[in-house]
């Protein structure tokens, strides 16, 4: 850490990544904030770094070979039919597990129906696990909605508060960084408009312990 009260550009470079992780202490953070206000080079660095993270975190950046999903499904099914065949190159610790699996039904015959490959993208991230009345923010010229205080709010000066349901209704998509917990585990291929289908509307109230 820097004890000096003055933060120079080099200090900012070194900490910019931690800054975006919300992993710098409060006093240094506020000195960085001051620096960003006066130094356009470091501001540009911050914007660019944030943009990089945002772009690459988009699910569209992950391309898989075509047929990947059905080949995987096939291989899983095959291993259920003949569990002995596929694990030969594996390390020894798996053997007892595999034996256990045989006892518990590892020889089921798979259904052979093919599941269509959904095109997953940040825009198709299901939002149905986000409590509809959760308070979120959007900003003027961006498509995503965030938990208040998220580092990836596009334009903090022009942000606006609303509920998650309103945000979805207005066509915003959840930020994969701050809303990751809600997006993580929902089933694939649904659209965010299914949020109304949330079965537990009372699981979370608006309770932010925001960034600052």
């Amino acid at each position, binding site marked *: 850490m820097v004890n000096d009260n003055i933060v120079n550009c080099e200090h900012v470079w070194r900490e910019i990544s931690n800054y975006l992780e*919300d992993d710098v202490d409060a006093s240094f953070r506020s000195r960085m904030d001051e620096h960003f206000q006066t130094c356009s080079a470091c501001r540009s660095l911050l914007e*660019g770094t944030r943009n990089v993270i945002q772009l690459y975190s988009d699910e*569209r950046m*992950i391309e*898989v070979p075509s047929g990947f999903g059905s080949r995987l499904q096939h291989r899983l099914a095959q291993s259920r039919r003949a569990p002995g065949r596929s694990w030969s190159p594996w390390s020894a610790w798996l053997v007892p*597990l595999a034996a256990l699996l045989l006892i518990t039904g590892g020889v089921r015959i798979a259904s052979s129906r093919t599941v269509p490959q959904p095109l997953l993208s*940040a825009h198709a991230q299901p939002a149905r696990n986000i409590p509809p009345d959760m308070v979120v923010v959007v900003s003027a010229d961006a498509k995503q909605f965030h938990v208040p205080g998220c580092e990836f709010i596009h334009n903090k000066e022009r942000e606006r508060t609303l509920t998650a349901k309103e945000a979805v209704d207005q066509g915003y998509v959840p930020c994969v960084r701050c809303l990751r917990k809600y997006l993580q585990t*929902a089933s*694939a291929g649904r659209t965010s408009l299914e949020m109304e289908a949330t*079965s537990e509307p009372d699981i979370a109230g608006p309770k932010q312990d925001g960034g600052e």
Partner: protein
Amino acid sequence: MAEANVVVNNSVQAGTSHELELIDRVQRGENSLFYELVRPYERRVFAAAMAILRNESDAEDVAQEAMLKALRAIRQFRADARFSTWLIQITVNEALMRRRKDRNGVMEAIDDRRDEESDYAPRDFADWREIPSEALERKEVRQRLAQALASLDRKYREVFVLRDMEQLNIQETADALGISIASVKTRLLRARLMLRDLLAAGWEQGWFSRLPFEKGTKPW
């Protein structure tokens, strides 16, 4: 950590009720449900293997092996962890084992020790021109970004992929790769800055010149 900003509610933790139910049923032996369980993550599993192996057919094979391994070990999974993180960790481990068998492993170990400590000075300080995420609809843009990522040294690429694409946290990234938290942070900083410089240079080379948003509002 960015995680600290997330509204954590006691009833929303590691998985949705649907996922938890699937896990429970697979753990009780309904193996035919396993694909449904992993399907939301299959792309990320592939990407994790690809980041380490850089070869599509190896990555696909390792991704399949990792998922078979996960199926066989499913009883070891505890619901207080994130299922996707667990899957990714198994995959990374499998991919690292595969690579160790490769003769390239020796070369890359040398690469690993190179200039870890030296600071990276960003090159480009011109006003950043934002690339909006809508631009990712264009295959060409995705390819440019993928090329930029592929050009990074392995140690930077791996950390960046696990943290910023797979959304593991810093600790999980360190655990998966078997490196220290400090190394994760250093490499992540560098990866992000290098990618920013590469993308800035890409603007100058016209990579993003036909972006739809350029009409009307200026993106910067």
